[in-house]
C-alpha cells in the first residue's frame, strides 16, 4: 500500500504543497521541449523530403555551433561568424547532396540511413581534427542573447526564469513558425511537399530533386545552428551535445516523422514529461529515470498510434 501511496498520491500532494516548484518544473520542461522540438524539426525536414532518417542531425548541431565559436575565436566578429556558420551549412548541404545523396539515389532507405551514419562519424572526426575535443563557451553575450535571471515571488515560493531560456523559447517558436509558413505558403515549400509525396510525380512536373535536397539539408543545417546556439548557451558547446540530439528520437516517435506540428507537440510532451517524471517520481527509484522515461512515453504512444500523433496514416495495399 505504501508504494501505491508513493506513486499515486504523494507526488500530487507535493504538487499542491509547492505549486511554485510545479510551475518551475513545467517551465524547465517546456524550454527543454522547445529545444528538443527544434532538433526534431531538422530530422523531420530531411525525412519529409527524402525519406531519409538523418542520423547526422545531432552532430550537425555541434558542428555548426563549433564553426560559429571557432570563427569568433579566430577574430571574426560575432554576427559575421554567424553568417559564415550559416554559409558553411549551405556548403555542407551541397557536399552531402553531391557526394552522398546523388550517387545513392534509388537505393533502399536503409542504405541512405547508413550513409548518414557514416556522415556522422566523419563529421565527428573532422570536427575534432579542426576544433579539438575541448568544450567551448557559446558567445552568448556577443550574439546579444539576454543573460541573467528574473525571480518572481509567487505561489508561496519563487519561480526563476532565465532570460536565455525565454529567448530560446521565443527564437525557437519564431523559427518553427517561419518554417511552417515556408513549407506551406511558398513555391519551394510546395515543391518540397510534392517530393515528399512522390519522387516520381515530382520529377514528372519538373521539380529538381537535387535542388530540393540541397534546400532541405540547408534548412536542417540552419535549424541545427539555432539549436546549437541555444543548447550551447545553456550548457557549453562540446561533442557530448550530439548525444542530447538523440532525445529527438522519442519526439519523432511521438509526433511522427513527417509532421512539423508533430515535432513541436512531441517535443513539448517529451520535455515536460521527462522533467515532471524525474522530479516527482524519480526519487522513488533513486533518480536518473529521465534518460529512459522519454522513450517509455514514446513507446506507449507507439502502441496506440504507430505513425505518431500527427504522422500520416500507414496504408499498405495488398
Amino acid at each position, binding site marked *: 500500500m505504501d508504494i501505491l501511496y508513493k506513486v499515486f498520491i504523494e507526488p500530487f500532494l507535493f504538487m499542491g504543497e509547492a505549486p511554485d516548484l510545479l510551475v518551475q518544473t513545467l517551465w524547465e520542461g517546456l524550454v527543454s521541449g522547445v529545444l528538443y522540438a527544434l532538433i526534431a524539426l531538422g530530422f523531420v525536414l530531411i525525412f519529409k523530403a527524402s525519406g531519409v532518417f538523418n542520423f547526422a542531425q545531432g552532430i550537425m548541431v555541434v558542428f555548426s555551433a563549433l564553426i560559429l565559436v571557432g570563427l569568433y575565436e579566430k577574430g571574426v566578429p560575432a554576427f559575421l561568424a554567424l553568417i559564415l556558420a550559416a554559409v558553411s551549412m549551405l556548403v555542407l548541404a551541397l557536399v552531402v547532396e553531391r557526394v552522398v545523396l546523388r550517387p545513392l539515389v534509388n537505393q533502399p532507405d536503409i542504405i541512405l540511413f547508413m550513409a548518414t551514419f557514416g556522415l556522422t562519424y566523419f563529421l565527428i572526426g573532422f570536427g575534432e581534427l579542426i576544433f579539438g*575535443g575541448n568544450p567551448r563557451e557559446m558567445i552568448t553575450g556577443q550574439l546579444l542573447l539576454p543573460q541573467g535571471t528574473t525571480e518572481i515571488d509567487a505561489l508561496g515560493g519563487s519561480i526563476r526564469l532565465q532570460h536565455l531560456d525565454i529567448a530560446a523559447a521565443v527564437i525557437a517558436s519564431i523559427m518553427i513558425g517561419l518554417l511552417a509558413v515556408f513549407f506551406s505558403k511558398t513555391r519551394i515549400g510546395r515543391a518540397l511537399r510534392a517530393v515528399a509525396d512522390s519522387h516520381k510525380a515530382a520529377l514528372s512536373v519538373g521539380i529538381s530533386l537535387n535542388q530540393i535536397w540541397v534546400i532541405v539539408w540547408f534548412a536542417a543545417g540552419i535549424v541545427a545552428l539555432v539549436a546549437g546556439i541555444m543548447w550551447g548557451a*545553456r550548457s557549453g558547446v562540446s561533442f557530448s551535445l550530439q*548525444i542530447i540530439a538523440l532525445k529527438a528520437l522519442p519526439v519523432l516517435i511521438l509526433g511522427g516523422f513527417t509532421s512539423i506540428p508533430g515535432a513541436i507537440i512531441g517535443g513539448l510532451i517529451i520535455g515536460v514529461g521527462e522533467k515532471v517524471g524525474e522530479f516527482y517520481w524519480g*526519487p522513488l527509484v*533513486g*533518480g*536518473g529515470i529521465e534518460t529512459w522515461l522519454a522513450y517509455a512515453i514514446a513507446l506507449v504512444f507507439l502502441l496506440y498510434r504507430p505513425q505518431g500523433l500527427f504522422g500520416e496514416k500507414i496504408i499498405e495495399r495488398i
Partner: protein
Amino acid sequence: MSFRKLGLGFAAATLLAGTALPALAQDSVYVPLFTYRTGPFAGSGTHIADGMHDYLRMLNERDGGIGGVKLVLEECETGYDTKKGVECYESVKGKNPVVVNPWSTGITLPLIPRASVDKIPILSMAYGLSASARGDIFPWVFNPPATYWDGMSMIVKYIGEKEGGLDKLKGKKIGFIHLDAAFGKEPIPLLQEMAKDIGFEVALYPVAAQDMQNQSSQWLSVRRDRPDYMIMWGWGSMNGAAVKEAVRSGYPMDKFYSIWWPGEDDARAGGAGAKGFKMLNWHAVGTNFPAIQDIQKHVVDKGLSKAPKDKVGELLYNRGIYNSLLIAEGIAQAQKITGKKVVTGEDVRRGLENIKLDPARLKELGLEGFTDQLALSCNDHNGHRAAFMQEWDGTKWVKISAPIEPMTDRVKAQLDAAAKDYAEKNAGWPKRTEACDKAS
C-alpha cells in the same frame, strides 16, 4: 599480386619488425599513455594528456630520458570508453610496457585482474578502485596519493569543521551529484556509511553520461530537496554543466564542493556566479617551478607539445605532470633497485612500491613545493595523503585550507573490508607472492 611478391613483402615486413623491436627493448623503456582527446570527456582528458606527455617528453629532451634510457611514448586514444581502453591495453601489452595508466575507473576495473597475469603495473592515480590501495592484496595496482574514499572523507571532514564539528552535521542534508558510472558511484558506500554513523541525510543525484549537458532535472531536484551542502563527483563536460546549472538554479556556490577533477574551464563556465565553488586538490597550479619551466623551454617552445601555451600550468595540465612524475619516479626507483638501465614492468612495480617523494627529492626534481610528500610501500600502494581545499575566486583557484587529512579511522575499516570482499568474490584471486623490498 603473385604469391612470390606477397611472400617477399611479408618477409620484408617481418625483418623490419624484427629490427625495430630489439631497438625498443635494448635502448629504451616503453611507456604507453592512455588518453582521450576526443569524445564527451575530452575537455578534461586533453589537458591531462598534454601534461602527462610533456613532462616525460621534457625528460627525454633535457636529460636523454631517465637514467640514460630514452622513454618511448605512445598515446592510445580510449575516448574514456571501457571497451576501447581494454583494446588499448591488449594492443600495448605485447610491447613490454613498464606501466599502464588507464585514466578511467571504468577501464581500470577490468585491467586489475590482468595486471598480475601480464606483469604490468597499473597506475590509477587518485582514481580507480579505492580498495586497490592494499598492496598486499593488489600488488600490481597503485592509486596514490589518495583514494576516492579518502577524498570523500576529507570533504565531509572539512564541511564538518565549518559547522563546528562532525557531530554538528547531524540532521543536515548532503546532496551528492555524480556521474552515473563506476567512477561516480565509487564513494557512495562510504558516504552512506558516514551518514549512518554521523546522522546526516544523503540525497543522490545521478547524471547519466548522455545527460551530462542536460542537468536541469537534477538541479530542480536539488531545489526541491534543499541540501545544506552539495558534493560533486563529475568528469568531462559534466563538471562545467553542473557549475552552470548550480549558478542558474541559485544554489549557494560556497556550499558546493567537488572531488579533485574540475579544471579552470569548468569553473569559468559558471561565469561570475561560480565564485565560491570549492574543490579538493593536492598539487600546485601555475608554472613557477623549474621542472615546468623546463617543459616550456624544451617541449612547448620547441613545438613538441600539443598544449596551447596558456594552458600550461593550469590545474588539469599539472595533474598530468603529477601522474608522469609518479611514472618517472617508479622507473628511476626500479633502475636504482635492480641496477638495470632498461627496466621491465616487474621492476617498475617494485620501483613504485619504493617511491619516496620527500621535499629534498621534489627539490632535486625541480618541483619544490609543488605537492606534499609521498611514500609508498609494499602494503600501502596509495599513501592516503592529505589534500587541501581550493576556491574559485572568479578567475583562478585560491588555496583556502591547510592540508586536510583523510578520516583514516573511518576509511580504513571500509577499505580493508572492500579489499577482502573483492578477493573473495573473484574466485582464485592470487595471494601475493611478490617479495617486498627491504626499503618498502
